[in-house]
């Protein structure tokens, strides 16, 4: 059987997705370990198959890609940090996880440079996995409804579905809502607009049930961004602001308000999971979770100040954080992450390593910033380019409040997003040619 390079790439995308949504394999403690293993199996199989499908590899072109360069720089600093690592074995474990992501990124860019990845494939994968995630999460909620059990904050853990915790799930759901709208716009049929509205509303409702404040904050900032960008567009084009934002209003804003109204109806207003109560804790000063994060950040900054050159060694923050937070630890439950990947990367690999890590996201932003010009061009699909910014905003907020760089599901989303950016910037791909 002959497989064309395009189908080979489709097969890779499918296997990569399946490796993220893989079976849990019995009693494994951390699902991420299974995902890293299956992703590395898929990477290995793809790498050994590539010479069979591509005669001219031209890897020089590949290694000139700025995203790959910045991530390789971070990895190099991570390897150098082995010299100072307290626990070198844990450093090696983490370095190999970083390599797993680097290889996946390299494979994606290799395919993108050959125009073998289709935008619609990526958008469909995003939409299908969104529905899968929501189904596994809301299955338990449906069970509660059928058994007339009123929803309460204590039941949130029942809704984490396929993922380790509610913050991860809420973020990855939110991340894909703009991509779902882009898919509907690409398909451009009323039925798909309606389905997008329906899935979007359920997705927002799912996020509200999960009560993840990082996701709520992201929604708020996305809305502010959309308001600013549409004003910016209006300033240049003087076109009707409502008509210009029709899809965003109907498929992003309206589903959110619908979900909000439904949540007000189904969640007791005295319960912690009630949307308004949850949002109030974001701005409150006595919230334990918020204060804990601030404490973790100050620990990471202290560590960076003391170890600016090579940090404490990649993969070793989980050890050092115990020393810093010892007075607050009871029963061996340790901080593990700094809840800010930029600070954690810098604390582990030093200032230069942190700068390389940060530069990865700055390069991504620079690629995105090209779309600003398209936003003010009256001939361009302004909503499409505006929506492209939202997953980036959501990811960056998550990066600053949680630890997406450690979670294969978040990294998978990031790779899908990178594909979408590259596919809409042919010039950016040709730059590396």
């Amino acid at each position, binding site marked *: 059987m002959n497989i064309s390079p395009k189908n080979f790439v489709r097969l890779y995308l499918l296997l990569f997705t399946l490796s993220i949504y893989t079976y849990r*394999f*019995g*009693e*494994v*403690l*951390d699902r991420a*370990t*299974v995902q*890293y*293993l299956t*992703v*590395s*199996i898929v*990477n*290995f199989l793809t*790498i*050994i198959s590539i*010479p069979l499908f591509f005669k001219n*590899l*031209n*890897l*020089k072109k590949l*290694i000139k890609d700025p995203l790959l360069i910045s991530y390789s720089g971070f990895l190099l600093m991570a390897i150098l940090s082995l010299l100072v690592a*307290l*626990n070198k*074995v*844990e450093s*090696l*474990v983490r370095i*190999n*996880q970083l*390599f*797993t992501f680097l*290889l996946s990124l*390299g494979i994606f860019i290799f395919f993108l440079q050959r125009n073998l990845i289709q935008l619609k494939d990526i958008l469909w994968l995003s939409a299908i996995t969104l529905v899968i995630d929501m189904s596994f999460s809301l299955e338990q909620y449906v069970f509660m409804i059928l058994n007339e059990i009123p929803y309460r904050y204590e039941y949130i853990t029942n809704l984490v579905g396929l993922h380790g915790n509610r913050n991860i799930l809420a973020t990855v759901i939110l991340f894909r809502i703009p991509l779902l709208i882009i898919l509907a716009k690409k398909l451009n049929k009323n039925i798909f607009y309606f389905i997008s509205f329906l899935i979007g509303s359920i997705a927002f409702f799912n996020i509200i049930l999960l009560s993840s404040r990082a996701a709520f904050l992201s929604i708020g900032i996305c809305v502010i961004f959309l308001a600013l960008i549409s004003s910016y567009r209006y300033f240049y084009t003087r076109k009707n602001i409502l008509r210009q934002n029709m899809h965003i209003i109907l498929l992003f804003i309206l589903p959110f308000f619908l979900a909000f109204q439904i949540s007000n109806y189904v969640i007791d207003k005295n319960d912690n999971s009630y949307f308004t109560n949850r949002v109030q804790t974001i701005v409150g000063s006595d919230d334990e979770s918020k204060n804990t994060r601030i404490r973790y950040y100050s620990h990471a900054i202290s560590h960076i100040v003391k170890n600016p050159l090579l940090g404490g060694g990649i993969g070793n923050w*989980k*050890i*050092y954080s*115990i*020393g810093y937070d*010892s*007075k*607050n*630890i*009871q*029963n*061996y*439950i*340790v901080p*593990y992450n700094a809840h800010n990947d930029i600070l954690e990367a810098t604390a582990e690999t030093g200032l230069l390593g942190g700068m390389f890590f940060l530069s990865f996201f700055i390069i991504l932003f620079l690629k995105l910033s090209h779309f600003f010009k398209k936003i003010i061009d009256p001939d361009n699909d302004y909503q499409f380019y505006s929506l492209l910014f939202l997953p980036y905003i959501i990811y960056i907020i998550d990066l600053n409040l949680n630890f997406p760089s450690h979670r294969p599901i978040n990294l998978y989303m990031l790779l899908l997003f990178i594909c979408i950016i590259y596919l809409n910037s042919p010039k950016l791909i040709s730059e590396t040619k």
Partner: protein
Amino acid sequence: MKQNKNSNFFFFIIILIISVGALYSNYKNFYINIDQVKLLPNVLYQSDDVKDDYFERFSVDYPNLTATAIPIKSLMGAYWIQQDSIEKGMEYLRLGNKQNPFIGLSDMILANVYQAVGELDSFTHYSRNAIRKLPNAPTHYALIGRVYVLENKIDSLATMFNSISNKVTDVEVWKVYLSAMVTNKYKVDTVEVNKNARIAKELFANNESVELLSDYVLYGEDDVNESIKLREVAIDSFFSNSRYSINKIEKALSLVPDNLSNWETLIEMYFLNDKFKEVIEIYDDLNRNGNTQLKASVIEYIIISYLNLQDLGKGCYLAELLLENNVNLSSSVLNVCRG
């Protein structure tokens, strides 16, 4: 062109080697993640569903920390000590300390081992290490508490207790403190110790050992032990000589006045002797002193006593409270109170 081909081949080989390395590392990480699921119950709950030879083959080197940053070697050390392989276990514990020197789990286990074998210097050394690393871990406080008792530094123990009990509500912390105070309360602020003993009784109302230790602190070991004996005699003799029995339980209460179990027994004894007025008097006294955490069965005796004294208002009010808390009441009470 040929140079280009060679460099491509070179890069490809490097990428291939990296991918094999990453695959192997991720496989090891995955494998040890599954092994942890078997190791943890064996260490924490001493279940023995897995044979020793499984742990002989257990990979402890890559990765060497669990999903919660605990050194796997420390857990293996704990496992082998439980299996009486002390030397092997201690070696693992020392190695575990190097892999995560901040968590103090190895120190905690080593301190316990050294105490068990009577090497008090080493016990003190590792206990201090443990508490220095995680000062608010209740298990570490339990260790340092024993060290302070050994060194007769009761004021240090009390100071540390005040600091840790404000942050952690853990029964072990209170047990160590109360045990130490049974014989040492006059060496520190006695008023504060008595206050803490009363707080402990409220905080761990259903914990028998905390109640006993608190009573020891408040009333002294001799009186508490005498009161326990009197209670046993009272219960054994009730059906043959109820007056004698009531007298004994009242004596027990004179020795340990706030023993709720004895008050409940006294209520039951008066009730079974149809002395409803006395039942209500005791209940009123308990209410005045704030002792209101009575068992549902005892409250039902009080309800029936009220009803027999024709005080339907108070009896039915208590009955409603029990019904609201899903307690089943006898039909005689329900007939009177709910018509």
